[in-house]
């Protein structure tokens, strides 16, 4: 087998006028100057047209300046990730062109802000059309405001896409519907200035180089993983959160700081992650549903606290929005490199991995309930892309949400007991739980080994029984832990395995592998720990499984082989350069491998 797959021009046809049902747009320039708003205006435009959306950004870890890029994929079918190539680039400086050039579709279009001169030569392929428009100069000269570059640029871009001027203006008005009337009119003026300059530069109304489809998608939510996870926590009755600002987990803190007080709860910005996890532990001990969150470096600082949850048997959700590490690493870049940390230490815990932004909502609810059931730590493994990138998802079913309080005792139940032992040995390992303030429930909670009464004990027999009791808690819920998402041919001899943000990329790759004659089945585990039988069976049942992950040592592969999966069947595909996998990366690698075997 020897099939060469070139990056697919996303959904377009190589006709004189390309028609798009799937388009990738990049807007890039210096960060903080507002030019990137064009991406969000286009997002609103495509949303209005019924497209599915995926948006991401590539920013430097600084407040203002540095090169910044916003990306948008708009497609009639859901995508869940960016495409292989950039079809349309809006570039505000030379650097934007240089960064985008290798990823540009051969028949792509560039809108270049020529205020400071023409675009760099010899960078872009000759087949790419470039429209040079002095967007910045127009904004300053005609409107006296540099910030209005965004609406001028938006006007030009709508002409490239063949959007009716009225529709484009309507979309702009809708996007800005909350701003004052005068500001609205200024923005509309800028938009019209963009149209006028499009007229003068070969982009007249009604004769566009490209056209785009109508989507027909039903109403969806455009939401990021951090937002969906925070929302799920709230709906699951979560009322206490603690964290320390850290990219890419900060949005959870700010979301909950805004919302929890409206529901009688608190989100606390702690002095460090040691404090954050212990604040959350304190709140959780009182019976409130609580969560702490961070990313790699902060998550490591929380580890002693997580072990305390496991030992002292306190329910808490800990969310880790992974980023490129180790150490400070690359704060704004994607990676999935904390799996080793998440499963380290000899105590029971569950590690969940939401499959996509929508699943973050479901899994947050599941995690919050599960923590109550197992009275211990439930870790949620997100990653930078899943956390911060927004995509269109089906609206959440709020009416079906149920709360599970596990073995929490009511005051009446305690009053009816002859005696109460906090760490009572039980068949399922879960001890009935009396929270402070309840008469008759007085107890001692400790991370020391202790007897059933909570009194410290290092007696060997007691120690063994207590370790086994705690371990049984995980076995008692194993059957209820979230199964993975599967796609593709169930009988395929080749498998793809990856979690979190890798899922959608695997799915896009599988479609193209099938076209090239390689049928695969995908498993995207949603429970990383304990390793579920389905994961081990998935690998055992296949000739070869490509384990696809964003880290340098193949942590997922190590995890599942430790869980019993045969190592020799696994081939790792690793990416740790800070950029997300593209479907083409997987397709090329797998076809080459399969051809050589």
């Amino acid at each position, binding site marked *: 087998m020897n099939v060469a797959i070139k990056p697919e021009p996303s959904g377009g046809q190589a006709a004189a006028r390309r028609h798009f049902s799937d388009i990738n747009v990049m807007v890039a320039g210096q960060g903080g100057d507002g030019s990137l708003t064009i991406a969000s205006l286009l997002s609103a435009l495509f949303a209005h047209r019924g497209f599915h959306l995926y948006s991401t950004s590539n920013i430097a870890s600084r407040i203002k300046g540095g090169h910044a890029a916003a990306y948008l994929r708009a497609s009639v079918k859901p995508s869940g990730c960016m495409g292989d190539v950039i079809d349309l680039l809006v570039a505000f400086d030379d650097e934007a062109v240089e960064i985008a050039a290798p990823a540009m579709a051969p028949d792509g279009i560039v809108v270049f802000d020529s205020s400071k001169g023409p675009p760099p030569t010899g960078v872009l392929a000759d087949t790419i059309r470039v429209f040079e428009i002095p967007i910045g100069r127009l904004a300053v000269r005609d409107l006296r405001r540099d910030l209005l570059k965004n609406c001028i640029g938006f006007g030009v871009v709508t002409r490239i896409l063949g959007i009716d001027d009225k529709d484009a203006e309507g979309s702009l008005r809708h996007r800005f519907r909350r701003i004052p009337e005068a500001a609205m009119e200024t923005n509309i003026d800028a938009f019209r200035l963009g149209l006028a300059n499009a007229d003068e530069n070969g982009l007249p109304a009604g004769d566009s180089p490209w056209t785009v489809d109508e989507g027909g998608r039903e*109403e*969806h*939510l455009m939401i990021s993983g951090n937002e969906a996870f925070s*929302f799920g926590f*709230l*709906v*699951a*009755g979560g*009322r*206490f959160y603690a964290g320390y600002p850290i990219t890419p987990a900060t949005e959870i803190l700010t979301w909950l700081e805004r919302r929890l007080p*409206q*529901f*009688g709860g*608190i989100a*606390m910005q*702690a*002095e460090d992650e*040691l*404090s*954050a996890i*212990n*604040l*959350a*532990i*304190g*709140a*959780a*001990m*009182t*019976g*409130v549903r609580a969560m702490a969150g961070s990313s790699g470096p902060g998550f490591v600082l929380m580890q*002693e*606290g997580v072990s*305390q949850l496991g030992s*002292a048997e306190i329910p808490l959700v800990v969310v880790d929005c992974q980023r490129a590490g180790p150490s400070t690493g690359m704060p704004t870049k994607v990676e999935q490199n904390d799996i080793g940390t998440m499963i380290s230490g000899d105590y029971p815990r569950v590690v969940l991995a939401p499959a996509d932004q929508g699943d973050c909502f479901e899994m947050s609810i599941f995690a919050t309930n599960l923590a109550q059931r197992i009275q211990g730590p439930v870790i949620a493994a997100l990653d930078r892309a899943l956390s911060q990138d927004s995509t269109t998802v089906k*609206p959440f079913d*709020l*009416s079906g949400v*149920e709360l599970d309080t596990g073995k929490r005792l009511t005051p009446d139940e*305690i*009053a009816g007991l002859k*005696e*109460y032992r*906090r760490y009572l040995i039980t068949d399922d390992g879960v001890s009935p739980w009396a929270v*402070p*303030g*309840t*008469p*008759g*429930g*007085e*107890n*001692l*909670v*400790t*991370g020391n080994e202790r007897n059933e*009464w*909570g*009194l*410290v004990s290092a007696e060997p027999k007691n120690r063994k029984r207590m370790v086994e009791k705690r371990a049984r808690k995980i076995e008692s819920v194993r059957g209820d832990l979230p199964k993975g998402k599967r796609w593709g041919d169930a009988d395929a001899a080749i498998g793809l395995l990856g979690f979190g943000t890798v899922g959608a990329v695997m799915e896009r790759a599988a479609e193209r592998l099938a076209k090239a004659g390689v049928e695969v089945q995908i498993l995207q585990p949603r429970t990383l720990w304990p390793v579920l039988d389905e994961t081990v069976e998935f690998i055992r049942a296949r000739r070869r499984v490509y384990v696809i992950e964003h880290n340098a040592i193949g942590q997922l592969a190590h995890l599942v082989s430790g869980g019993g999966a045969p190592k020799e069947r696994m081939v790792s595909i690793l990416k740790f350069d800070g950029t997300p996998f593209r479907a083409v990366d997987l397709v090329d690698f797998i076809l080459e491998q399969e051809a050589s075997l």
Partner: protein
Amino acid sequence: MTKTYTPAEPIWCAGCGDFGVQGAIEGAIAQLAIPKHDIIIMAGIGCSGTLQNNVGTYGYHALHGRVLPTSTGVAYANPELTVIAVGGDGDAFAIGAGHFIHTVKRNPNFVYIVMNNSVYGLTKGQDSPTMDAGAAHGIDATRLALSIPGASFIARGFSRWSRQLQELTVAAMEHVRAGRGFAFLEVLSPCVTYHDTYVTWEGMLENLDDDPTYDPTDLAAAFARGVALEAQGRMPAGVIFRSDGGAGRKIPPAMALQDIDPARHIDRYNDIMSSYAV
């Protein structure tokens, strides 16, 4: 009556200052007639971090250095509880020193009793940050607390002065139960095994509670007195500073007792969801 755990016997050496602290806490609980189920004793790590086992209330054994954030979490999540945090000077001013500053600043409603003996007893006598070493004085945590905006109750007791110690404990608990905020009570609690300072410390203390001219609501005076005493090789005891700045704060009901049934909030949840609709 539901039978619960039988309080443990203290593990401390005969003559340990911590007996005096436990006695003061038990005396204060009895004096204020607070039911034991409404109290949680949050303990640090070390000899002092076993006190919670001995009293019969709810108890929690925190991670080393983390008793303050954990207690803050408890106090915020269930303001109806009387939260008494206890621990040693290593816990408070070495491994947990960062939290001390931020807890004084936040002023949450709980009592914090630090049993200061200037050594790590359980690990056999290493110096703690409050130990005088050569020319350098140990950290005086009462003055550290005075320097932090938000401080509302700062006192020092001596484990041998049991009557005053119980009064100070009662005052700290009343401060907290009135919603005025964080009550910091440092107790000089000598380690008879590694650093027996009963006689030295007693000689160094000036009891401000016996001084009718001393005004504990005057921050500048409190600071000046501490500095002046230190220059003489002495230190203050009693209520060093108190402020009613936090008085009258609304104490919300316990979060854990709130109705979190999703059906009750579904309209507001729907509003949030619709803000993401496209």
